[in-house]
C-alpha cells in the first residue's frame, strides 16, 4: 500500500470472489452475519467470522439455513445491516424467511453462490440453475432484487450496492453468482466507499401518535421503527394494514400489495444496471450473466477480429429484468444467443421479450463445466448468416 495514499485510497490485492463479497459487505456497513456452512459459499462466512469482530460486528453460525436467514432478518429488525450467504440447497431453505423479509419490508442481503442442482447436485461445480428461483423462490407475489456480478471487483461493488438498495427500498436483495466467480482470484482495487455513497434506511421520527408503520409515503417506502426509539411497532408476516396489524380487508390488501410490488417499479432507475458491450453495430446479440458473460466478452473480441459483429447485453441487475433496455438493444438484431449454465432459464425472459423478427437461441451447458468462448463463437457464427 502506498504510504502517501489517503485514507480512502483503493488498495490493490489478490482476492477471491467470495472474500470480496465479505469485504464489500463490511464496507457497506454490514455488522451482522448469520450463516451455515455450505459449498461453495463457505469462504464468505469464514471471512465474516474473522472480520466482523474487528469492526464491532457480530458473526454467528446458526443451527441451519432457515435459522441463519431468520437471525439475519432479526438483526436487521433491530436496526443493524445484516447478511447471509449460501448455495442452492440452502437457498431453497431460506425461501420461507426471504418471503418474511419481503412482506415485512426488512432490508437484508442474501448471497447465493450457485452450484450444480437440483438437490445436492454437484456441490463443487459451477452452475446457473437458480436464476428463476432467485426471482420466484418464495411463495406468493413478492418483491426481490437480484444482482448478478461477473468479476471479483464487481462482486465487491455489487455487494455494497445490494446493501444500499436493501436499505433504500426496504427489500431483500440477492447477490447471485456462480462457483467459478466465487472462487476466482483476481487482482483488484477495493475502494472504501465514502459515507455519502452508503445508504441508511429511513427511520421513523416524529410523534408516536402520528406514526403509521406501513403508511405509503410519496416514495412508497415507509419509515421503519427502530426498537428502543419509542414507537413500539408490530411486525408480522401476515398481510397487514398501515398500522402493521393483520387485515383481510380486500381494499387494504390490494393497496398493500400494489405498494409492495410497485415500489420497485417506482425506483426502477435506482435499481437497473446493465452493461452493453459492442451492441450498437452488432448483428448478433449475446444475453448473459456471470461466467458465460465473461466467455462472451472473449468471444466478441475473437469474432470481431474475424469481422463478425457480435455484442453483449449483460444485466447487472438481473431482477427485475431490464425489459425495456433489452428490447431496445435486441431490436433489429438477427439473433439473440443466450448462453447459460443450466437447461434454459434466462432464455425464457428473452423469448418473452423478443422483438419481432429476432431469433432467440439458447446455448446451454449443465455438466458442471463452464460455457467457453469457443462455444459462443460457434453459436454466433451459426446465427449470423
Amino acid at each position, binding site marked *: 500500500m502506498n504510504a502517501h495514499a489517503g485514507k480512502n485510497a483503493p488498495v490493490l490485492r489478490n482476492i477471491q470472489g467470495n472474500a470480496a463479497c465479505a469485504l464489500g459487505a463490511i464496507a457497506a456497513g454490514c455488522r451482522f452475519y448469520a450463516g451455515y456452512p455450505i459449498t461453495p459459499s463457505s469462504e464468505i462466512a469464514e471471512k465474516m467470522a474473522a472480520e466482523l469482530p474487528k469492526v464491532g460486528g457480530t458473526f454467528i453460525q446458526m443451527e441451519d439455513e432457515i435459522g441463519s436467514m431468520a*437471525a439475519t432478518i432479526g438483526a436487521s429488525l433491530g436496526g443493524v445491516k*445484516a447478511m447471509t450467504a449460501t448455495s442452492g440447497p440452502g437457498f431453497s431453505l431460506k425461501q420461507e424467511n426471504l418471503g418474511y423479509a419481503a412482506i415485512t419490508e426488512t432490508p437484508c442481503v442474501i448471497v447465493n453462490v450457485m452450484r450444480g442442482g437440483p438437490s445436492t447436485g454437484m456441490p463443487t461445480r459451477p452452475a446457473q440453475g437458480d436464476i428463476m428461483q432467485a426471482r420466484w423462490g418464495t411463495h406468493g407475489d413478492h418483491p426481490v432484487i437480484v444482482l448478478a456480478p461477473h468479476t471479483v471487483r464487481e462482486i465487491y461493488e455489487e455487494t455494497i450496492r445490494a446493501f444500499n438498495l436493501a436499505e433504500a427500498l426496504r427489500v431483500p436483495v440477492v447477490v447471485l453468482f456462480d462457483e467459478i466467480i466465487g472462487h476466482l482470484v483476481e487482482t483488484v482495487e477495493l475502494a472504501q466507499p465514502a459515507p455519502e455513497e452508503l445508504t441508511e434506511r429511513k427511520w421513523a421520527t416524529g410523534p408516536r401518535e402520528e406514526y403509521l408503520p406501513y403508511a405509503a409515503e410519496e416514495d412508497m417506502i415507509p419509515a421503519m421503527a427502530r426498537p428502543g426509539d419509542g414507537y413500539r411497532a408490530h411486525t408480522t408476516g401476515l398481510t397487514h394494514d398501515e398500522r402493521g396489524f393483520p387485515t383481510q380487508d380486500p381494499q387494504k390488501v390490494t393497496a398493500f400489495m400494489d405498494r409492495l410490488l410497485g415500489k420497485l417499479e417506482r425506483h426502477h432507475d435506482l435499481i437497473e444496471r446493465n452493461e452493453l458491450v459492442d451492441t450498437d453495430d452488432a448483428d448478433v446479440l449475446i444475453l448473459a450473466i456471470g461466467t458465460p458473460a465473461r466467455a462472451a466478452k472473449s468471444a466478441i473480441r475473437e469474432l470481431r477480429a474475424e469481422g463478425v459483429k457480435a455484442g453483449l447485453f449483460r444485466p447487472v441487475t438481473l431482477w427485475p429484468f431490464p425489459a425495456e433496455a433489452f428490447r431496445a438493444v435486441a431490436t433489429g438484431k438477427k439473433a439473440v444467443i443466450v448462453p447459460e449454465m443450466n437447461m434454459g432459464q434466462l432464455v425464457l425472459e428473452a423469448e418473452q421479450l423478443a422483438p419481432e423478427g429476432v431469433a432467440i437461441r439458447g446455448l446451454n451447458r449443465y455438466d458442471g463445466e463452464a460455457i467457453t468462448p469457443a462455444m459462443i463463437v460457434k453459436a454466433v457464427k451459426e446465427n449470423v448468416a
Partner: protein
Amino acid sequence: MNEIRVTSADKFDIRDWLRTELMPHFMCPGCGHGIALRALLWACHELGIDKDKLAIVSGIGCSGRTGAYIDANTFHTTHGRPLAFATGLKLARPDLTVIVITGDGDSLAIGGNHLIHACRRNLDITCMMLNNEVYGMTGGQVSPTTSAQRYTTTTPAGNMEPVFDACRLAEGAGASFVGREATLQIPTLKDLLKEAIAHEGFSFVEVISDCTEIFGRKNALGSSPEMVLKQKKVMIPERSDNRIAQPFRPNPFPTGVFVRQERPEYGAAYRQMCERVQKGGKGR
C-alpha cells in the same frame, strides 16, 4: 446476576401493557393463553421493564398471535422460527429485553432445532412456551405434547405417539434456567416468569395452558373452569419440586424451577472476544 429488582410499587394494571385498540382478542373462551399473557406482563411490570426496550418475538399458532396484543416492540415471525429471529435480534441489540412466546408445535415440532440450539448457546433470551397439547389454530391436530390416547383431528383413533417432556429436553440441551407452571396459579406463574426474565442467559418456561374449545371438547374434558378446577384439586403448591397431576395427562407433571445455573451468557462472551480482537489479540 439473579436478583430481582422491583422498581415500581404501582399496582399492576394489564391495560397499561396492552394494545387495547386490538380488543376484543381472537382467543377462544376458556383459553389459557390469556392468563399466561397476564402473568408475563405482570412479571414485566414488577421487574420495571421499559416497554420501549421490550421485544416480543413469536411464531405461528395461537401462541404466536398473543404477542400482537402487547404494547411493545412485537415481532410475529414464521412458524417455528421465533427463537432464530430472536437470536439475531438479541445479538444485534443486547440492550433489548427479548422474550419469545411460542407453542408446543411451534417450538417442539417445526422449531425443535432452533429450541435445542438456543438452549445450548445460552443467549440472554426468555422463551415462554405455551403448551396446550394441540395445534389449535389449524383446527386441532396432534402435537408433540398431546397425551396418549387423546383424540385430535389427526388421531381419530387416539394418539399413539409418545410425548415430549419439553423441560427435560431444554435441560438436556443446556438451558441455564428451566421451569414449568400451569395457568391456574397466576402469581406463581408470574414469579417463575420474573425469575426467568431476570436470569442472565437462556431461560425456558413451559406454561401448561388449556385448549378448551378445540382439545377439551373433543376429549370430553369439560368446560374451562372444570378443567382448571380439576387441576386445582391435584396441585401441590410448592416451588421447585412440587408435582401437579394434570387431569388431562396420564402422568403427574412436576412444576417449579428445574434448572438454575450460572454459566457465561453468549452475547457478552462474544463481545468480550471482539474487544480482545480489536486490541490486537487473536480473540482467544
